[in-house]
């Protein structure tokens, strides 16, 4: 069993730390890099006593540990679903149940270890100060965090089609609802590329936060400033557009075979990008943007997104060339916005995107670079 354990440690534990190196570097910096070496112990002792002595603070810490626990469990379950790791089902499925449980425990505690170490020290520090109840709470929480996921892993082994703990819910939903073609790309993003959409949305949130901060600093709202922020958000969506095209090319060929008119394909495209940009609009609205500016910004962003996506129906348009066109169009649009012609810009871009789409979509075919 020693060899099996070593191999599983390699597959799960080592891979987890390698894949999350950046995450641990940031965490390490936040925990140990923000204070000077001399006060490091007293800093952490105070931090531990802080959350062991205050219920609300403790609940917050437990919530963060729970998130980390979910990340660990998600990693193990995702490994099972990853192509190339199918051998885990027959191999682990052949191990006797008690031995397999020990293996699950070793794997899970191996990746949950940072929390266990920190929580263990916190309990010891808390008990010296008489925080028995908090100590008990932390101990019970971590025991549950170590043992509950084992049942999920066991379930996954016998039900490979179930994804994470939402399997039952997923099947229940699948029986009742049919996914709309306009949402396929969102399913793809959230199931297979969550980091990509999250990073784009975080970048856009940052851009808009900075936009509103600068607008306040310069003493008053200016719609042109907001539109500039909106345009930067549109440009940040460029990588999602490339992803969208690759997804369409790889998986959605069958949609072309359906008896649907072109305008429905175009409406679907427009729906995708309007929905994609909705969080930014919500953020603008939450910052008390006047309705006229909000509408103008939304229309301009939608027009730009549609035009930029339609450009990708030129089969030879790669990411680099696309970015050049995106920047060129944005540059011209910027001056139109500064001159107060944003509606004119939008009213040029929407027909341009529709024209490109209606002309190129029926002729579009994935471009394969010829071998040199």
């Amino acid at each position, binding site marked *: 069993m020693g060899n099996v354990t070593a191999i599983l440690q390699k597959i799960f534990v080592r891979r987890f730390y390698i894949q999350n190196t950046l995450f641990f570097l940031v965490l390490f910096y936040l925990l140990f890099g923000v204070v000077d070496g001399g006060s490091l112990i007293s800093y952490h002792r105070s931090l531990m006593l802080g959350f062991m002595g205050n219920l609300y603070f403790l609940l917050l810490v437990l919530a963060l540990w729970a998130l980390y626990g979910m990340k660990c469990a998600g990693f193990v379950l995702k490994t099972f679903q990853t192509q190339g790791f199918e051998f885990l089902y027959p191999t682990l499925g052949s191990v006797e149940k008690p031995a397999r449980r020990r293996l699950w425990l070793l794997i899970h505690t191996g990746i949950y270890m940072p929390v266990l170490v920190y929580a263990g020290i916190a309990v010891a520090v808390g008990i010296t100060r008489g925080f028995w109840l908090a100590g008990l709470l932390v101990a019970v929480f971590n025991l549950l965090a170590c043992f509950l996921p084992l049942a999920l892993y066991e379930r996954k082994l016998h039900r490979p089609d179930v994804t994470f703990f939402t399997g039952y819910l997923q099947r229940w939903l*699948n029986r009742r609802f049919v*996914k709309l073609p306009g949402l396929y790309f969102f399913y793809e993003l959230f199931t297979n590329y969550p980091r990509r959409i999250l990073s784009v949305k975080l970048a856009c949130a940052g851009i808009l936060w900075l936009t509103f901060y600068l607008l306040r600093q310069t003493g008053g709202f200016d719609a042109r400033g907001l539109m500039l922020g909106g345009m930067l958000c549109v440009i940040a969506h460029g990588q999602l557009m490339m992803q969208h095209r690759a997804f369409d090319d790889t998986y959605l060929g069958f949609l072309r075979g359906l008896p649907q008119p072109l305008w429905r394909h175009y409406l679907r495209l427009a729906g995708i990008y309007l929905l994609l940009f909705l969080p930014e609009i919500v953020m603008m609205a939450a910052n008390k943007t006047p309705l006229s500016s909000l509408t103008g910004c939304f229309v301009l962003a939608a027009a730009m997104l549609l035009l930029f996506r339609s450009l990708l129906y030129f089969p030879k348009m790669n990411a680099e060339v696309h970015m050049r066109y995106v920047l060129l169009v944005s540059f011209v649009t910027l001056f139109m916005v500064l001159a107060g012609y944003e509606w004119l810009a939008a009213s040029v871009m929407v027909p341009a995107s529709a024209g490109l789409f209606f002309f190129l979509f029926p002729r579009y075919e994935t471009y394969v670079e010829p071998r040199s």
Partner: protein
Amino acid sequence: MEAVIALHNVRKSYQDFHVLDIARLELPAGIYWLQGENGAGKTTCMKVMAGLIPFKGEIILQGNVSSHRQPVAFRRLINYAEAEPLYPSFLTGRDLLELYLGTKGGNRQQVMELGERLGVTGYMQNPVSTYSSGMLKKLSLLLAFTGNPLLILLDEPLITIDKQALAVLYDLIRAYSANGVSFCITSHQPLDQRELPVSGTLRVAAKNIALV
């Protein structure tokens, strides 16, 4: 006899490489076996006929439905099952079936019975990422029989499916053919003449298709 499908000056190239150059081909109703070596252009030909990839020239169905002038009506009359079907991992068989029923039309009850016969109903609620290649193939075959097609193009339908499903498939082809649906089937395995009475053999060679 009026041609079910007629190809006029159909040309298809991938960059500078010409794959198909068919001056004229007219096929009356029937079951056709499309043959050709690997890379001869069978799949490209099928995708062109199904209107899935752009091409030059014209394809007419039933003498009056043009691939370019009436693309929606054209796609309603022609169904295609890929040799190696690929769908987004998160979609379920049911999602796809509902999409096909919603766009291609057809009798829901009949399609459900068909699914039952092919043995796909048991896993229709599961995402396609959990399907084996055989299950995926059966699903794509079921989708190819959905709607009211005039012509069904089956690219390598005999691979990966089990014997039971194969018998059902032969049976379906015969039954649909008796109701006036035509078939164009590619297969490297010889088609069993007792199971499938082939009306003619099409050979893809030298960028052309000839009825032999």
